[in-house]
């Protein structure tokens, strides 16, 4: 008896998503599809717009990572005008971007990806959430996370005006720099952020790495794909989240390509499927061979572990130590383990915090010289940054008055779109046998995409998830004091013990 399992909508994902799993007569998985039922058409309605408005328009693609789009767009507009911002302007932009990466990565661990590990992948649904995490690591941590998020986001709104959709990037620089008082505050936040990142790594070490079961899941075959990896690197091939060249390594870890964003069309192409609105990027020089891994398939991966795989280390000292430790535990580089994305994300968290502190401490950001006014006729340009979810490329071509004629975007999440489909299918095939399916198994299928999708919105929204679904509140001795659950009629009920 063939059966079909639909998970719709899948949860703790930014944007709409749907998983369809088809079972054969024996109840084993025949096929699984990860579908994206959404499209808004930014590339098309960008046509005709003023190019300097693009840094204000394109962040609306994603309210979770608007800062990444604002940065990629700002850099693209610079390229369109052939203008180089003064060093202070570039540093201010990177500082804002570092604050953003730090808050985003931190929240992912505690609110989204964290519950699957800290609480446990097949723990009851009721505990697999932020409250469960707090139960393990202590309540004060929750306050710490909320406060850290708020202070980091204040850095973005101080310079960018708004934290959701900042506006400071203009052609050739920024519209505003920090005052000395603001800068002093940035330094204080940066120091605390470094400490916070180290704390997060300690939690990961204690709760995940010291648990053999978890380590076995991480290194096991169900969550593993031998793919190419892509990420931005600096001149020394160290991870850089704001600028540099795009480096690609093959599944053996050898450099396959390294190029400036201006050559992206020689390296990246996008495949279309009739069953999803999302496109599937692949390495042009390898070719699209379908949803398969290996050296002959052009499927590549992006975002934290991909970036660490595609680099030769971290540019800051504390993050470098953690980088070395991770690859030694995972048995060398590249690491193909999808769930190790969570670990890599924490190493990038530490890097971003260290980089934030470095930039905040740099006297140059107080310079008045934060703008180079363009003097060339606008034409065509590309820009790239690393968004939390991967390599993000913008490409605009304009007329001589700076009106956009063509816009093309390779959005970060797309970089993993083929791999997410493969990971969901492989996890479903490995976990669902003989028609046996339960919540824990389906969650372990969802973990296959969640590892790629460090979505802060979803993550933080889980804070609200817990009191409303099925929660057990316990006193410090572990006695149940209250239970909040949904009854058969769908009403949320509370019971005091």
């Amino acid at each position, binding site marked *: 008896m063939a059966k079909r399992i639909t998970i719709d909508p899948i949860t*703790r994902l930014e944007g709409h998503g749907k998983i369809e799993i088809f079972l054969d007569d024996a109840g084993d998985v025949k096929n699984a599809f990860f579908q994206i039922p959404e499209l808004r058409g930014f590339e098309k309605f960008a046509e005709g717009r003023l190019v*300097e408005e693009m840094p204000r328009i394109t962040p609306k693609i994603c309210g979770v990572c608007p800062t990444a789009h604002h940065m990629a767009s700002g850099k693209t507009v610079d390229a369109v005008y052939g203008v180089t911002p003064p060093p202070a302007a570039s540093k201010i932009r990177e500082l804002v971007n570092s604050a953003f990466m730090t808050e985003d990565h931190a929240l992912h661990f505690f609110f989204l990806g964290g519950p699957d590990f800290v609480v446990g992948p097949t723990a009851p649904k009721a505990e697999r959430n932020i409250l469960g995490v707090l139960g393990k690591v202590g309540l004060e941590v929750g306050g710490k996370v909320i406060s850290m998020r708020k202070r980091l986001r204040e850095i973005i709104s101080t310079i960018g005006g708004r934290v959701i959709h900042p506006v400071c990037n203009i052609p050739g620089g920024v519209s505003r720099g920090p005052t000395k008082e603001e800068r002093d505050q940035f330094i204080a936040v940066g120091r605390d952020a470094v400490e916070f990142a180290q704390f997060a790594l300690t939690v990961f070490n204690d709760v995940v790495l010291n648990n053999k079961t978890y380590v076995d899941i991480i290194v096991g075959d169900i969550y593993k794909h031998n793919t190419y990896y892509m990420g931005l690197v600096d001149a020394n091939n160290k991870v850089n989240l704001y600028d540099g060249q795009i480096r690609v390594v093959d599944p053996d870890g050898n450099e396959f390509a390294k190029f400036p964003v201006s050559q992206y069309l020689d390296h990246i192409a996008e495949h279309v499927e009739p069953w999803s609105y999302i496109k599937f990027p692949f390495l042009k020089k390898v070719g699209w061979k379908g949803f398969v891994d290996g050296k002959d398939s052009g499927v590549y991966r992006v975002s934290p572990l991909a970036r660490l795989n595609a680099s030769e280390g971290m540019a800051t000292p504390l993050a470098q130590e953690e980088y070395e430790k991770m690859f030694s535990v995972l048995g060398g580089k590249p690491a193909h383990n999808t769930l190790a994305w969570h670990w890599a994300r924490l190493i990038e968290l530490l890097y971003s915090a260290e980089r934030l502190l470095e930039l905040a401490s740099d006297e140059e950001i107080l310079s008045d010289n934060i703008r180079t006014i363009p003097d060339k006729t606008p034409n065509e340009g590309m820009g790239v940054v690393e968004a939390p979810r991967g390599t993000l490329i913008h490409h605009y071509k304009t007329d001589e008055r700076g009106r956009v004629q063509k816009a093309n975007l390779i959005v970060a999440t797309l970089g993993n779109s083929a791999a997410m489909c493969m990971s969901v299918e492989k996890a479903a095939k490995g976990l669902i046998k003989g028609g046996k399916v339960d919540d824990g198994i389906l969650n372990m299928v969802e973990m296959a995409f969640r590892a790629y999708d460090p979505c802060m919105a979803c993550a933080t929204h889980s804070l609200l998830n817990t009191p409303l679904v099925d929660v057990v509140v316990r006193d410090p001795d572990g006695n149940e004091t209250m239970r909040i659950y949904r009854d058969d009629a769908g009403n949320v009920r509370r019971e005091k013990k």
Partner: protein
Amino acid sequence: MGKKPKVAIYWNASCGGCEEAVVDLAEDILKVVAAVDIIFWPVALDFKREDVEAMKDGSIAVSFINGAIRTSEQKEMVELLRKKSGLVVAFGSCAHMGGIPGLGNVTNRKEVFERVYGTSESLHNPEKVTPQRETGTDVGTLTLPEFCDTVQTLDQVIDVDYYLPGCAPPPDLIMNAINAILEGKLPPKGTVLAPDKSLCSDCPRKETKPDEIPIDKLTRVTDTTPDKEKCFLEQGLICMGPATRSGCGERCLSANMPCRGCFGPTTEVLDQGAAFLSALASNFDTKDPDEASEIASGVVDPIGVFYMYGLPSSLLKRVRLTENQ
């Protein structure tokens, strides 16, 4: 239990920024959770559509709905939520006026598909595949919702009780709205829950704004670095402040950038872009038609600047659809 009002939060063609805005309530979010039961929030909760379908009509006290309407699935969902809800609040610029995704009304489905799946520079699509409503595979049929030609505001699809403006709405206005609902101190239906005065009246630069702004030339931020103190319009930079409602906290202005109108117009204005155009043109510092047209040529993309957030809700609504679209 059962006494706390039930609240739903839903999103359509949007970016997730409105969800972030709720999380940015920070400590206040705990007060909200204590006062209401959130019974549907797909981005965060595991409740599904059938859970909402099973509820009694009108049993949700209020649904906060963000995003514009672009797909068939979004239409069905908001119609369902309307039926189940006492109040519906259009949350954020996209639900209120169409927002930036509303700029999609300069084009249509066919052109979007041609660009995204046909001519995009990075595309490799030799068989010219496009997403289909239904795709047969050897294991079963996969479906996708319909992508519509026209972006609609929420109140073009369902009856809306209140509007929370902004991209995204600021925390203080969100909390005011929630408190008003909890305390039953609601203004007349159809009210935009923000001050009914122009941004200029709250602008930190208003002291430098002359009563009449003589504009002899328009400029762009590309060509100048905005002065940090002076009225943007006086600098010749287009700032939508005169035609835009206040209440945003002057966030863009604090970053030394002019307003782009995300709060929409005040009550007395029918069409934000037309109102701005009228205000702008009446300040042109000339009586000579040729000179006026010379100044006006500085407006390079009127639709993208005057209607950046509000094309679907404007009198224009969209660029005309022609044959075969």
